[in-house]
């Protein structure tokens, strides 16, 4: 399929940007020998800058496993995953940690540190990016929280916030350092319809303005329309489900 950004031309020359995520021939199994159970079969997937890709599929189909593999949280032997152009297979733990710092994560559960305020839960991310000075870190944190509609909750502790507010803090945390890729695992699962919608729209706006590609795992039919592309995974096999232009 033609990539949406591939239509941008410079002097009538078609520029195809290199993919941020490039998975090919990926097989993955849990266990070994007789207990071996293959989860993923011959996965191939490419995600380009600025793309929002939704990954859907029934539970147990291998979605989460694929996400953990993409984030370098599991090691694999068969196939290839290239993240920002570097191969994950055989990469050492320390380099994996460095790669992970370029990814913004949004989890099903917000997992905020309940002893830190909203502001500090977000600002803590700059500990991973010590080159950003403290004033700028503070500024960007406040901007991000404001963008998430949390202007009045900078100094609130998580237990004083609603589920939607907490999830928005978590999204601010994922985006504040300007990641090169966002991986979101059912970001709306814990939210009601209205807040769920708000959250993904915020995500969409921010992703569009910063050209950050997003891979989102979801069951939620109500948010499928924000995707550029939907891929479906079933019994460990990936297939292109439908295509939608924005």
């Amino acid at each position, binding site marked *: 399929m033609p990539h949406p950004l591939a239509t941008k031309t410079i002097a009538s020359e078609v520029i195809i940007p290199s993919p941020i995520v490039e998975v090919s021939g990926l097989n993955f199994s849990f266990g070994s020998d007789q207990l071996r159970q293959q989860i993923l079969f011959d996965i191939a997937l490419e995600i380009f800058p600025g793309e929002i890709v939704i990954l859907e599929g029934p539970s147990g189909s291998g979605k*989460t496993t694929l*996400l*953990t593999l993409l*984030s370098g*949280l*599991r090691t694999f032997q068969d196939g290839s995953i290239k993240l920002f152009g570097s191969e994950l297979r055989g990469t050492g733990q320390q380099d994996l*940690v*460095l790669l*992970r*710092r370029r*990814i913004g*994560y949004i*989890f*099903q*559960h917000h*997992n*905020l*540190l*309940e*002893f*830190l305020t909203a502001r*500090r839960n977000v*600002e*803590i*991310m*700059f*500990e*991973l990016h*010590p080159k950003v000075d*403290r004033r700028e870190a503070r500024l960007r944190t406040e901007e991000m929280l404001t963008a998430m509609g949390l202007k009045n909750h900078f100094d609130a502790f998580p237990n004083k916030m609603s589920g939607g507010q907490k999830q928005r803090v978590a999204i601010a*945390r*994922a985006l504040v350092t300007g990641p090169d890729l966002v991986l979101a*695992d059912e970001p709306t699962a814990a939210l009601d319809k209205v807040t769920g919608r708000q959250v993904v729209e915020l995500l969409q706006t921010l992703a569009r303005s910063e050209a950050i590609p997003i891979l989102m795992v979801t069951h939620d039919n109500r948010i499928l329309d924000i995707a550029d592309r939907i891929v479906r995974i079933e019994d460990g096999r990936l297939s292109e489900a439908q295509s939608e232009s924005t």
Partner: protein
Amino acid sequence: MIFSRNSFVAIGWSQLSHGKTRMIVALCGVSVIVAMILTVLSLKDAVIESTLQVPKSLKGDVIVMSARTQTILRPAPFPRRFLDRLHGIDGVAAVSSVAIENARWINPETRQEHPIRVFGLDLEFDVIALPGIDPGEPRLKMKDTIIFDASSRPKFGPVAQRFKSGQGFSTEVNGRRVDVCGLTYAGVSIAADGNLFTTHANFQRLFPNLGGSRSHIGVIRLKASSSQAEVARQVREMLGSEARVLTRTEMMEAEKAFMKLNDPVDDIMGMIASVAFFVGMIIVYQILYTDVVNHLPQFATLKAIGFTGFFLLGIILAEGVILSLLGFGPGLIMAHGLTILAQHATLLPVTITLSNTFGVLLAAISMCVFAASIAVRKITQAEPASVF
């Protein structure tokens, strides 16, 4: 950077102070342990110190003992004429002797007999600096009078109470009637449960068979300009291998070393302090461990988003160090209170030394850091792949 707003130290502090009650409980634990260790160490020093009271109070620059004497508290006798020859040495201002023997003291209340240490002193020479031993005290020069060590064990009878209330106190020592004419505080030791001080003349009356020619400790005072080491060398030369000649400092060191080696109190107190250290570690471990376990999903999240194990380790270690530092202050204050109580109760010279204070501070920090480093092992179980 480690003190910035989101450093592991700051995060550790936030985590610790978020649960106020829990932190206060932990701090109480640390404080009590600090107070306990510091008090026990001070008591230990006090016990050692108290047994050294007598040697310490000898007012001399060079000390002469028999070569067979291991500790000044249990000295072997030597002929007193040895000391007479020392006047010839240049730099020697005065020489005196102390005689020490065990006598039988009868507790007039129970009629039981207890061995007591008797010191025969030359009062003209002012040989010993102890409270209540005043060379000018006229009653001391009378026949059969003694000064009783009020820090002696209670089995000798209610001597101090009766003397203080003005009733006076007399009893039998070595079958001879003596009157208590004063009280002093010399301290008990492994060598003696109680002490008496008297003049050489009275000492001879108590031990008539010894003939008065024996001495146990020679005390040499020097002229202002002369060197202790030099005089000690000359004395050694003059007396030969029969004598053990030490400068005052050498004598104190030798006595301390002897006490440490021979007094079980050192080991017992040390053991109590170690147990307290261990209990403290368990308290801190429990607190920090619950902290880690309760936050395992969050720690796993931090790991997944790119924080290193070191950062998480730093958080918990920082909590440990903060606990030890904050708990130390109140513990120190408690220990001061406890030692004042202990001093009143035991009459021992219990004081908190600077070196013990720093030692216990270090112990408290290492206690908490050690506990934290055990608690932190649980963090390795925070599996980042599980957060999806």
